[in-house]
């Protein structure tokens, strides 16, 4: 008798091998998808985030952050940094403006929350600690803190230092 095609055993072995490889690939693809969408935003926005943090923190260090005023409007929140040179950071849902530089979000699924978190603590020896967090929303939710813009300052009090202890959005 002439043998034609595959036997059932051959087919089963082939299918099993291919399935194992496909499952492995599927797992990798799923992890890539999660990294790409759920927990992060576009790399351009990542770069802009780093740039904003670097510019603001450099000014904190250079001009010394003495106080902070937060003004919340309907479409924007303005942070007024009282330093030797006064600077303002304006947050809109799709952009942040600092020192006349506008950083617009490239990711359509990401937005800035207008509800800023702010904490102030008095430390020993006249030092103080300030933490300001601008939450980044992915699909309207702040699921991950990784993308948030977190600004901190730890400094020595002087005669100009004046911060509110409490702030509620």
């Amino acid at each position, binding site marked *: 008798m*002439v*043998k*034609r*095609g*595959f*036997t059932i*055993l*051959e087919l089963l*072995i*082939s299918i099993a*091998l*291919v399935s*194992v*490889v496909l499952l*492995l*690939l599927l797992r*990798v693809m799923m*992890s*890539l998808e999660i*990294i790409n969408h759920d927990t*992060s935003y576009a790399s351009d926005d990542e770069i802009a*985030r*780093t740039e904003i*943090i*670097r510019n603001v*923190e450099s000014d904190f260090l250079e001009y010394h952050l003495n106080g902070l005023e937060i003004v919340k409007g309907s479409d924007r929140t303005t942070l007024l940094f009282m330093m030797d040179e006064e600077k303002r950071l304006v947050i809109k849902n799709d952009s942040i403006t600092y020192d006349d530089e506008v950083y617009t979000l490239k990711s359509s699924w990401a937005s800035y929350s207008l509800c800023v978190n702010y*904490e102030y*603590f008095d*430390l*020993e*020896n006249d*030092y103080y*600690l300030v*933490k300001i967090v601008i939450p980044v929303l992915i699909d309207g939710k702040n699921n*991950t*803190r*990784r993308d948030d*813009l*977190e*600004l*901190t*300052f*730890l400094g020595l009090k002087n005669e100009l230092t004046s911060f509110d202890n409490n702030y509620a959005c």
Partner: protein
Amino acid sequence: MKRGFALLETIVVITFVTVSLLLLYSTFTSMVDNSKKNALYDDATNIYKIYYLKEYLELNGLAFYMNGEDIRKLSCDDFSFASCTQIMDTFSLENLYLVKYGLRDYNQDNYTSSFNNYLKSLANSDDYDYRLVGEFTYEGEYHYASIGVIK
């Protein structure tokens, strides 16, 4: 007349395809690992936190712990200021280490694999005596940042 493939032929071809796909898989996996590392290491926010902390600890006796030990895990008990815990919590800092600059050979079993991987990833091209390494936790993930310290 023989038609179709023999089992041996089929297995040889599938083995070849499998090896190729596995190579692809390992490449993808290392790419994913690298992108994760980029997201977890030396974030701008964490670098500034470590900078402020270093400045503050230097005023509170950090130099005392730069005594030749390869890696020193620092805790708030090592310092005499009461707000240490407050700062650690505000900064989401889980652990703080003082590591000899350029350290390569040490007993890795005493530390977590994520900490060991971070130390491995560091370049050691500058002239510092020690490195202050912060281990931050965000949503159960360990993030790292460090800054050089001169004795």
